[in-house]
């Protein structure tokens, strides 16, 4: 009897989740409320857990710096121990300062209103490429807002909760960005592959795309403003069948190394 209850419950859950996946409005609406409740808690929990881990990581970095400093001090026969420790601390501050300055510079140069957010987590599945940031609706973030870093485009907001948001990065297989080859006005679509490279699609074989060309956003997809650097062309294959070239692109931003991102809130 019990197994029948479990079985029917499971089949019902399976059916509802399938209807949500197919975007049936009634079920999607209900599910969105429940899902965002869990996502909200997840975001806040990630923010909480990230704080001590970030501190520990900073201490570890400082520890590594200290070990290096110690070696230097031994080499200098411990004459400048205090000085070199102070120097290390300053280096750490300078590195942090440089990072923040770059973000500030890019923030001032953008016409759109920008918001700096901390990256607090990463997607737990290798199938999807995404990050979690510590700012959400409370800070004015909404779905489909572009996310950048000092090096270039990172991705877009796919879910904004009250205190946190989920970002789909451009490497995700569901991501597609309308781009121009800089200086050549050749247009294409940079699609994620799920790996570290992107694929530049819909560029005809007779068009002059070369290794080393840089891609910038075209501004024509209605999500990303024009001129944000996307990546660099690393391979062009025109020997494949069909009308279009097979082009591989390495994105300028590596989402795995990000501590801060900028959200263009328009």
């Amino acid at each position, binding site marked *: 009897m019990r197994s029948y209850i479990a079985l029917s419950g*499971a089949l019902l859950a399976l059916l509802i*989740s399938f209807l949500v*996946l197919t975007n049936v409005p009634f079920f999607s609406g209900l599910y969105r409320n*429940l899902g965002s409740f869990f996502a909200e808690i*997840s975001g806040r929990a990630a923010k909480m857990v990230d704080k001590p881990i970030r501190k520990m990581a900073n201490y570890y970095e400082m520890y590594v710096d200290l070990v290096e400093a110690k070696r230097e001090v031994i080499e200098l026969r411990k004459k400048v121990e205090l000085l070199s420790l102070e120097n290390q601390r300053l280096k750490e501050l300078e590195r942090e300062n440089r990072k923040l300055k770059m973000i500030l510079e890019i923030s001032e140069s953008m016409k759109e209103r920008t918001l700096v957010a901390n990256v607090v*987590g990463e997607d737990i599945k*290798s199938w999807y490429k995404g990050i979690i940031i510590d700012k959400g609706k409370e800070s004015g973030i909404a779905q489909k807002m572009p996310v950048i870093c000092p090096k270039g485009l990172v991705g877009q907001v796919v879910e904004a909760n009250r205190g946190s948001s989920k970002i789909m990065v451009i490497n995700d297989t569901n991501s597609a960005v309308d781009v121009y080859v800089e200086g050549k006005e050749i247009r294409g679509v940079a699609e994620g592959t799920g790996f570290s490279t992107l694929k530049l699609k819909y560029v005809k074989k007779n068009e002059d795309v070369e290794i080393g060309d840089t891609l910038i956003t075209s501004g024509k997809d209605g999500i990303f403003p024009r001129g944000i650097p996307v990546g660099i062309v690393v391979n062009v294959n025109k020997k494949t069948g069909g009308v279009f070239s097979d082009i591989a692109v390495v994105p300028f931003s590596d989402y795995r190394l990000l501590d801060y991102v900028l959200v263009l809130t328009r």
Partner: protein
Amino acid sequence: MLEVSLSAFYLFFITTLHSVLLKYFSFDFLKFDVAIPLLVYQTFFRRINWACVFAIISGFIQEGFSTCPPGTFVFTKVSIFLLCLLVRERFFIESEQTFALLCGLFYILESLVTIGLSLIMGGLTSSYMNIFTYLMPNGVFTALFSMILYRFFLRFNQIPGEKEWE
């Protein structure tokens, strides 16, 4: 009820830690599934009604930490629960190795369910290579994690000598 709540809390805690740590040690092969061993444990050794509830909750928890389309993980976790129910009648877990083997296999099955779902939906994921590439490494890491978990359950005497038949 209490056991499912504890398992859900434990899953939530581990998943939060997993997501945050992945930011610092970002390797795709380390993105193993934390929920599958708990789900297999619940279905095989505890009451299946609560295991069904746990399957749904674990789907929601995992979706909270992923950019997947809504409904994906609830669908895959409930599918794994149903497969577990099928296997439960024919398979006996007597050691951590069999538990790990089963968890690894269920991870692979979950990936295949996701690919199947993608094929049906058309456009959920455009590249199946991404899922296939990490299928084996993530399956192996899920199995290794489940061995640790099995020892944990054994230490706290949570695994009965005989399977609880309904």
